[in-house]
């Protein structure tokens, strides 16, 4: 009998050991879900939105966006002021004296030179390496290093030890080459002078991007050594771990358990620490969309940064119902110019008001393959812009947004979300059946589209293939679009659903006819959207090639006058969405948040959707001023130089 209990005892011991070895931490001041597990905390290697959001807590760049202001202006961060030369190519940043690393050491101009040099190395495979190529000499430096690395494996050495010495020598030469080639100089520890290849009007926007944050050289270098056989810097994980990482942002990392949680405490050395109204942040890793909503409802979370539960459409509908019940007040507050979170806070508390649809800096669209021939050799009817225009006009965008997505998203007639970039006016775009005011107008659009197809000699019985990846409801959107095309254009459609990897591969090889796509802007300038249609761009999945369009972008890149430049970019987008249509904009994304507007404040409603969680104040706790932080209206002008701290 006792022997039978042996397995039971074995199991009990195992459980006992592991339960005892795990100690739960107290609840943090702010608990939020950061949509998905962080891939990396190395800012130069980042590209995911949730990684960048985390980076803004741990690191701080030269400048930052004022996310709580309507104009999203650039304001000081590590640099307390800056001068721009008259020709717009030389930037001189003056770093503040009190900017410190989390170990108390000062942040210097050399730290920025080191970190940006890291990003410019081919060794590091930074996704955003191109952004650094605006700096004079950066491209030459990249090429030089790349050539040296390609040649290194074939170089002769007497012994492995010699080869290793050779790799280190090459690294020393690389550092010297950087000093010689790249126009980034530090005349003193608090001055950084950068010269650009050509004027880049959005350069400060780039400097506010988390990839441009500094990292701490004495730490990082320990984990980044030249590989003895290839001479490449091999990046070993390890320096981004809790209690190892040294960073210069408002918070420091104290715990990171893979797939479990990440915890941060206020950085006592942060220059602006008194403005921070929370002492600790916990980001549990909850990947199941349903569990996230449930955990919020039990009060375990303060903010869900991206609700993806399948029933979120219903949540948004309930919120609209709630606003409808208070229609009069809402109307009045909107007329006063108040932002949506402030309006929610002024209304009586209601659980339905915890859902928020926030417009995002991204667009959902359909790609056309613009190559003259399809992969199977037959002539591609979509190479004809008239066909593309006809198809674009007959997508019922309204129905996709309202009946399929159900998140209150605006339909899109342009690639760039209108109103998201200051100083830029969006073109009108093509008429669309979804936005027609009445049946007559709708019929007229359909008639016009059919005539275009006839004029373009669109083949009868042609089957239009629509490619999309599994999940996220792309299938439902594809069905709705297919129905529109069948009904209004009389064409046959075929839906092709694939795993994301295969789908991406097909796009890259232009092995498709039409395919779903989406793009989120990285920085506050139209080029962040328009560049993906430049003929040689790596993200030009459409194989779109219009010399006029390319020419306008080139011309804009050389233009010094900001308003003339914006006009050129406007014309480029007009060609894109009114004449050529290599893509059909369908809707501009909304992100769904959950938080209690009476409790949480400091989140931005700006369509750039860049949240700085360190600005959050939990109004029900006893830390910070506990006063609401509504969106501020811009004071005209003062966006280029100086300014005040947040």
């Amino acid at each position: 009998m006792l022997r039978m209990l042996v397995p039971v005892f074995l199991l009990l011991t195992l459980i006992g050991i592991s339960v005892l070895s795990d100690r739960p931490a107290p609840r943090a001041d702010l608990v939020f879900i950061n949509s998905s597990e962080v891939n990396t905390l190395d800012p130069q290697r980042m590209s995911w939105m949730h990684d960048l959001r985390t980076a803004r807590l741990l690191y701080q760049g030269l400048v930052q966006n004022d996310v709580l202001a309507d104009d999203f202006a650039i304001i000081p961060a590590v640099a307390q002021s800056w001068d721009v030369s008259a020709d717009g190519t030389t930037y001189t940043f003056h770093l503040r004296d009190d900017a410190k690393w989390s170990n108390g050491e000062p942040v210097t101009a050399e730290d920025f030179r080191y970190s940006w040099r890291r990003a410019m190395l081919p060794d590091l495979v930074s996704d955003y390496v191109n952004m650094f190529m605006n700096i004079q000499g950066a491209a030459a430096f990249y090429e030089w290093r790349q050539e040296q690395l390609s040649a290194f494996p074939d170089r002769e050495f007497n012994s492995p030890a010699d080869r290793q010495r050779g790799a280190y020598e090459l690294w020393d030469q690389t550092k010297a080459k950087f000093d010689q080639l790249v126009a980034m100089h530090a005349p003193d520890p608090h001055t950084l002078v950068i010269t650009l290849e050509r004027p880049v009007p959005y350069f400060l926007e780039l400097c506010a991007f988390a990839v441009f944050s500094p990292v701490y050289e004495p730490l990082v270098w320990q984990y980044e050594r030249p590989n003895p056989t290839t001479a490449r810097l091999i990046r070993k994980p390890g320096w981004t771990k809790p209690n190892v990482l040294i960073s210069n942002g408002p918070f420091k990392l104290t715990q990171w358990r893979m797939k479990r949680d990440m915890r941060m405490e206020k950085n006592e050395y942060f220059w602006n620490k008194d403005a921070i109204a929370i002492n600790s942040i916990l980001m549990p890793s909850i990947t199941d969309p349903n569990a996230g909503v449930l955990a919020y409802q039990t009060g375990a979370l303060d903010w869900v940064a991206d609700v993806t539960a399948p029933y979120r459409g219903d949540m948004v509908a309930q919120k609209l119902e709630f606003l409808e019940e208070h229609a009069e007040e809402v109307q009045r507050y909107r007329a006063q110019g108040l932002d949506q979170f402030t309006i929610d806070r002024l209304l009586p508390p209601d659980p339905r008001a915890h859902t928020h649809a926030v417009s995002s800096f991204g667009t959902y669209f359909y790609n056309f393959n613009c190559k003259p021939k399809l992969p199977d050799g037959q002539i591609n009817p979509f190479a004809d812009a008239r066909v593309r225009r006809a198809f674009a006009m007959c997508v019922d965008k309204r129905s996709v947004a309202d009946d399929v997505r159900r998140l209150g998203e605006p339909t899109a007639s342009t690639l760039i979300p209108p109103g998201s970039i200051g100083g830029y006016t969006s073109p009108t775009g093509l008429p669309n059946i979804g936005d027609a005011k009445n049946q007559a107008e709708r019929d007229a659009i359909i008639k016009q589209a059919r005539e275009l197809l006839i004029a373009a000699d669109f083949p009868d019985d042609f089957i239009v293939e629509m490619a999309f990846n599994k999940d996220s409801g792309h299938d439902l959107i594809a069905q709705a679009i297919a129905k529109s095309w069948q009904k209004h254009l009389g064409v046959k459609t075929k839906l092709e659903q694939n795993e994301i990897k295969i789908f991406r591969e097909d796009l890259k090889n232009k092995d498709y006819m039409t395919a779903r796509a989406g793009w989120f802007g990285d920085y506050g300038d139209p080029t962040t959207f328009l560049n993906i249609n430049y003929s040689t761009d790596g993200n030009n999945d459409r194989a779109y090639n219009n010399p006029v369009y390319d020419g306008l972008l080139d011309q804009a890149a050389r233009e010094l006058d900001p308003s003339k430049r914006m006009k050129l970019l406007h014309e480029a987008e007009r060609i894109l969405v009114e004449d050529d249509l290599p893509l059909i904009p369908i809707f501009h994304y909304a992100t769904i948040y959950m938080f209690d507007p009476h409790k949480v404040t400091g989140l931005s409603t700006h369509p750039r959707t860049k949240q700085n969680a360190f600005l959050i104040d939990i109004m029900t706790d006893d830390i910070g001023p506990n006063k609401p932080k509504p969106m501020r209206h811009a004071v005209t002008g003062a966006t280029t130089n100086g300014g005040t701290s947040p």
Partner: protein
Amino acid sequence: MMTLILRRLLALPLILIVIYTITLTLAWAVPGNPLENPEKRPKPEVIEQMNKQYNLDSFPRFYISYLKSATGVSYASDWLSGQIKREREMAITEGIPVPPRPIFDFGPSLKYDDQTVNEIIRDTLPVSVTLGASAILIALFIGVGAGVIGAVKPNSFADLSTLAISMIGISLPSFVIGTAMLLTFSLWLGWFPIAQWGTPKSIILPAFTLSLPFAAYIARLTRMGMIDALGADYIRTARAKGASEFSVLLKHALKNAFLPVLSFLGPATAMAMTGSFVIERVFTVPGMGEHFVNAVQNKDLFLIIGVVLVFATMLIMFNLIVDVLYKWIDPRIE
């Protein structure tokens, strides 16, 4: 006994190499590039270099290099050639801490930049083991209990209802039971926390959900074994000599009926302890199970092989433990 253990342990590396070969071949055949971020694409020359660095451009080279680093051969050869010593000296001359280097290196994760596969397994395996052990424990109590009750009066109401419940346990998918339990006990009754792994309280719901299919299977095994045993001659003898019903059931009959359960426990424990994708998703348990699915979707080669090798090793080890226990509980077995 010792020869059994020795023989099994000697076979272990051979089995693992076969599993490694099959897994790598299959994972290699998955289309797509593991280094590609789904939204933004690195330059082709960069991808080429990364491929070279991780040997992703050649199957044989990857096969050999991974085998060498995972088995510790790379470490041994670097140690013999003085490379490790050189690195250490270089670090000391520069006055920095010596970078850690594991002997058995399962490589980097291609998806999670900041983690090595060793770290991922180190962080997630203990969680899965705790959950799995708790689930098997619960399954044993429920399963054996239900089996015995059913066997005492076959086809009675008690028997049929335990049978029915075990059918439900086997056939209802765990995401349905899991979500129902989460709604009932966490959201409405508020007895258990949601999505906060770590406290003993947070283990109960996922462990119970995970235990159900195992419990159902154990119940049916016990019931069949008990019905067989209760009809045997030695039970009549036991009853005839005046042993109490309790003693007959638990001491004499269950001892024989437990053997099939024990042999089921080996693979069941290995399976429960390496994590369940669905349960981990529903209850937000930071375990290893999800990597079996996600690593394949991300084509994270190093991670796929890492978790499969861990699972294979555990499966073999638990089978060995069960065989040893088997022999010890029932000395008749050769």
